């Protein structure tokens, strides 16, 4: 049923896009029947659309991501554009998963403006909501922030510069084991994100010889999300006498942490994931001090932060800015390598420019274009530090940031961990 709706919508869209394109081509002098995926080698520019959160619960992630896109556009055009023409950008709002209509509307808009690459969305749930429409229109969808394992290899037209959760789970497991904990309880909510991440964390811990005392995959000890009362779960995990607890949850964290604290648990031995590694100003000072969390992605270097501030002087957060920047640079390089500005070319050449087949490392658009013009294979090593795409169009390796809580229950970046994507 759902499939039919999507198919119908995609068909309608494809029709609309074709109409719009025909209208455009009619005005232009030479091109005849281009469709959305067809080659437009007549010097028309590469158009990037952004599907990033301007409103909704993830709106705080929007400004750094948009700044990353804008900075990349600026630098590409300074370096002479793509295939001789300036790259263009159309910004759109993705909203959040609770208001999926916003993203659907934006995608319709972007596709009607015949963008070749859509950078977004930030939330995996939003991506799941629109990815069929985008990829059936044979437009590249390139997310800077999706970490859901379910998106691995979802479509030939889907790429991401954020690593799937398996990398984060591995890094988190190693972090906990490396801190010398030997008995670890996992409090995880019964949700795809939670259990998927839990499985990787547990595997890593067990491989390091750490005992998982609670919440393992075989234990059936996941809790129901969005409760207010976690007394029973807290008592159960405490009864297994863990010396560290990995808490994988979203909003529930704000309720569980005080309940753990009141049950007498040393909350400085808590470990969070990107779902809940955030500032908790409402908690008592020092409650989380020493607790740690992981967020995928490299912490942008000072120099890159400066460049971002040049685009948007009001930035205070930098999450996923490097990943957004790299998504645009990689797309432009793929078009440059293929020699035409269209989605199919970008899709076909993205693995190559990311270095999937090896090549000379280059770190900026101008440098990489020079190598391409010289006929060399390239490997773009960007700001986010992710490795070449694998067969699933996932980055084959990535950085995971480790954050630690200070006395104000705010996170500070401490270090980056390097991890490879399994399989």
């Amino acid at each position, binding site marked *: 049923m759902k499939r039919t709706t999507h198919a119908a919508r995609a068909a309608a869209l494809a029709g609309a896009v074709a109409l719009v394109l025909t209208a455009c081509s009619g005005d232009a002098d030479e091109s005849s029947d281009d469709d959305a995926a067809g080659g437009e080698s007549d010097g028309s520019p590469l158009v990037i659309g952004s599907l990033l959160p301007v409103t909704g619960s993830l709106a705080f992630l929007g400004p750094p991501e948009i700044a990353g896109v804008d900075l990349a556009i600026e630098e590409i055009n300074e370096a002479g554009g793509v295939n001789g023409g300036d790259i263009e950008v159309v910004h759109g709002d993705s909203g959040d998963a609770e208001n999926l209509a916003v993203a659907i509307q934006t995608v319709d808009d972007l596709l009607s403006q015949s963008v070749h690459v859509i950078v977004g969305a930030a939330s995996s749930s939003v991506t799941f909501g629109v990815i069929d429409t985008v990829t059936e229109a044979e437009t590249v969808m390139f997310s800077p922030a999706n970490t859901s394992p379910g998106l691995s290899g979802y479509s030939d037209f889907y790429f991401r510069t954020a690593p799937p959760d398996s990398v984060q789970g591995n890094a988190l497991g190693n972090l906990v084991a490396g801190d*010398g904990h*030997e008995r670890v309880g996992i409090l995880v909510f019964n949700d795809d994100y939670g259990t998927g991440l839990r499985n990787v964390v547990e595997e890593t811990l067990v491989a390091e010889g750490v005992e998982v005392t609670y919440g393992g995959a075989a234990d059936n000890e996941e809790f129901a999300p969005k409760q*207010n009362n976690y*007394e029973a779960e807290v*008592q*159960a995990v405490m009864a297994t006498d863990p010396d560290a607890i990995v808490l994988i949850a979203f909003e529930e964290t*704000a309720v569980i942490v005080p309940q753990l604290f*009141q049950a007498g648990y040393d909350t400085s031995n808590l470990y969070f994931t990107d779902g809940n590694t955030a500032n908790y100003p409402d908690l008592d000072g020092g409650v989380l001090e020493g607790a740690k969390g992981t967020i995928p992605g*490299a912490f942008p270097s000072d120099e890159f932060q400066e460049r971002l501030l040049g685009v948007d002087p009001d930035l205070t957060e930098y999450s996923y800015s490097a990943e957004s920047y790299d998504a645009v640079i990689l797309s432009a390089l793929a078009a440059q390598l293929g020699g035409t500005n269209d989605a199919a070319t970008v899709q076909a050449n993205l693995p190559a420019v990311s270095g999937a087949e090896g090549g000379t490392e280059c770190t900026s658009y101008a440098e990489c274009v020079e190598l391409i013009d010289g006929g060399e294979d390239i490997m773009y090593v960007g700001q986010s530090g992710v490795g070449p795409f694998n067969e699933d169009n996932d980055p084959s390796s990535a950085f995971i940031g480790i954050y630690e809580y200070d006395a104000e229950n705010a996170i500070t970046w401490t270090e*980056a961990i390097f991890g490879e994507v399994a399989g």
Partner: protein
Amino acid sequence: MAATLGGLMLAMSPAAAAAAAEECVASPELGCLSGSVRGGAGPADGVVILVEDPEGETETITTGDDGSWSVEIPANGSYTLTLDVGTLPEGEQLADPDQNPRQLRAVVGATRTVNFELGEPEAEAPSAESGEGGTDSLAGEDDGGDVILGDDVSTSSITPERVAQQAAAGLRFGLVLALASVGLSLIYGTTGLSSFSHGEQVTLGALLTYVFVSLMGWPLVPAIILAVLICAGTGWLQDVGIWRPLRRRGVGLVQSMIVTIGLALALQYLFQLVFGGGTVSILSYIPGTWTLGPVRLNIPSYYSMGISIVVLLAVGWFLLRTRTGRATRAVSDNPALAAASGIDVDRIIRLVWVMATGLAGLAGVLLALIFNGANWTLGMQMLLLMFAAVTLGGLGTAFGALVGSLVIGMVVEMANLVIPTDLKYAAALVILILVLMVRPQGILGRAERIG
């Protein structure tokens, strides 16, 4: 820059490099490989690890007292780690000899963790090969040494202390649940209406207190009193604005029930709109705890239990001893007869609505204090439990609601001692079904009916 650093590093003597490596911290120009060597007997110090970089240069690292080691990575590439097994402490061996030497990629700007685990080489396998009793029992003893609680955590972690603790939590939850259920039961008793919007009255109490205390900075006690009064006021308004007109027009109970469902949904999403989807907490700090024997609960829990008991006793006294209370029972027994004998039925019903919504608001405040937070779904989650409690105790009997609430509270809090934790609410409802099969009228179905 990176190249210079790399050159410097390689030029250093192994000992100096090892010393420097103790503090390897990844920076934009430098990466780290780090990890530890440890096993059941603790960390192993003085273990030598050879690190071969992509150019074939080898660096020698020795683990420190805590078994940890780290080495600086000046350039991206593939590194080979070889642990010199001859330097392991006596009697120790690598748990996975296939992982030595280990080849892996490391990059500038990040730390990569590589741990070497010591122990029986087939430590993972013995359970599969039960024939090899010798290794098996050895491994088991090793585990037993570190682990106080044996292997099967889900059964052996049930201690008397934990049972007492969770029973106390169940009593606490049951008493507060009773505050809300008694109101639901009174409404059902006097009007025959199952009010699905009762859960939102609970949420309202919690959120109003949040507004007064956290946003407006009032002291807790006046805030609670005002919030409960406002909740009671909404009961009065509802009766004037909705329920009395509906009764006047002779709208059936089923239709009225649908109205309460609509009201519940409208209120839920109104709360979400105003307060957002997140959890809000009334107090700006985490309250302390008191320990009584094996039981450790936060201080609001003790107050909440006290308040619940006092209020429930007051409600009981009102119903049994006061003139209005007796009138209330008369109305639920037979409204027509009650009206004929001079009781103002509408006035009684309005009083019941005011009481019920006030009690629900109080329950909401107490729950939010006990659990350190409330969100827009607080009442929705409670609603089924309230219905279960009311039905379990005996429909329409106030004391039945109390008994039913205590049972439901206990079951919810103690269920995870025996079944998976996310089935705890389901367990409460299974108990409901079982009890009703044996006693269709509920536990106190015959005792003290409200009328």
